[in-house]
Structures are given as C-alpha cells and as structure tokens.
C-alpha cells in the first residue's frame, strides 16, 4: 500500500497564527483526504482534495479556516489558519488506492 509522510509530526503554536501541514505520498493517488481527530474523539473528515480541482469541504469546515492545496498527484497541504485552542487536535491525511485507505501518522497540534 502507499506510504505517507506527514510533516510536522507535532507542533505547539500560538493562537492567531497559522500552521501548514504537508502530506507526501510515495505513489500517485487521485483522492486525498484530510481528517481531524480532537482529543478523545473519533476522526472527522475535513475535506477531500483531488488534484486539479478545488477541495470539497464537509459541513462545519470552510476554506478560509482550512485552505488546502493539491498541486500534484503525490502531495497536499492543509493549513490551519488563525488558530485557537479549540484547534488543538491530531490532523491526518489519507489516500485511497486500489488497496484501500491508508493514513499518515498524523500531526499533533497544540495551540496555546
């Protein structure tokens, strides 16, 4: 299955700042996904990012807060903008291949 490299693995950020998370895949994939996992909670889909088109956001998530780039078939970024403590979560990227869904190891974000 695809191997995903997600960076950074963790960060502590000041409120009001922004953080960009990178997701690099070792093979070309059409569909990439960004999830949020709040403390003690399950994974919630933020958006689906397909190369060559605008990301599709789930209810409760907006592009201004979570802009996504998908410049090619192996890379995507998620930016968490104007952060507040409520944004403290684990953010994971995921890809869909013929073998199914694979997840990155996540970015643990703490906003202080």
């Amino acid at each position: 299955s695809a191997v995903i490299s997600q960076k950074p693995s963790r960060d502590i950020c000041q409120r009001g700042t922004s953080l960009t998370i990178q997701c690099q895949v070792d093979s070309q994939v059409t569909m990439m996904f960004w999830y949020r996992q709040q403390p003690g909670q399950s994974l919630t889909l933020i958006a689906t990012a397909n190369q060559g088109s605008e990301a599709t956001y789930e209810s409760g998530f907006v592009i201004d807060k979570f802009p996504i780039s998908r410049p090619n078939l192996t890379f995507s970024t998620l930016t968490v903008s104007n952060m507040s403590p409520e944004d403290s979560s684990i953010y994971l990227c995921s890809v869909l291949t013929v073998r199914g869904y694979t997840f990155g190891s996540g970015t643990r974000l703490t906003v202080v």
Partner: protein
Amino acid sequence: AQSVTQPDIHITVSEGASLELRCNYSYGATPYLFWYVQSPGQGLQLLLKYFSGDTLVQGIKGFEAEFKRSQSSFNLRKPSVHWSDAAEYFCAVLTQGGSEKLVFGKGTKLTVNP
C-alpha cells in the same frame, strides 16, 4: 445519514484472554466496513475490511470480524490478546453514492493487563 456506533469507550482485558469489540452501523445499502487500529502516537492501520462474500473476515495480527446484517453489526474479535494489542480501535463504514468517504465510530480504547 450513515453512522457507526462503538458502544464501549474503554475495555480492559487480561493478556491471553479473548476479546470482542462491538460495532454497529446505520447504512441503507450493503455496507463496506473496516476496522482500524491506532497505537499511541501512530496513524491508523487497517486491520481488516468487509466488502462482500464470506461474512467472517480474517485480518492481520490474528484479528477477525463477523458481519451480521440482521444485527447491523461488525464486531472485531481476537481469541488471545497480547500486550502489544493495547491501542485504540476504530470501526468505519464507507459511504457511497455521490461523495465516497469513511465515517468512523468514536473508537474503543483497549487496555491489556499483564
């Protein structure tokens, strides 16, 4: 709307004991079902999946799951738990028809006592 329920937030078992983690889903059509495991500080690893066919699915690490349509369940089992199985387990259903996406349950945290 599609949903997944994992009734047990936290389960503790002794090493060597059997394990069953419950998962119930709500989905109108034939579901595609998954079990993932998340170890501390790690991403999600797929244990097994069910698409169709044999309702008893074998996965990695000695896990299996049984799909029961009549009960809308997809429970995960392991006959003998190892200390390394301590982790969080997530059940998920793949929605279809339009936007395809995984919907996750809230997870069950497994603690293994020596």
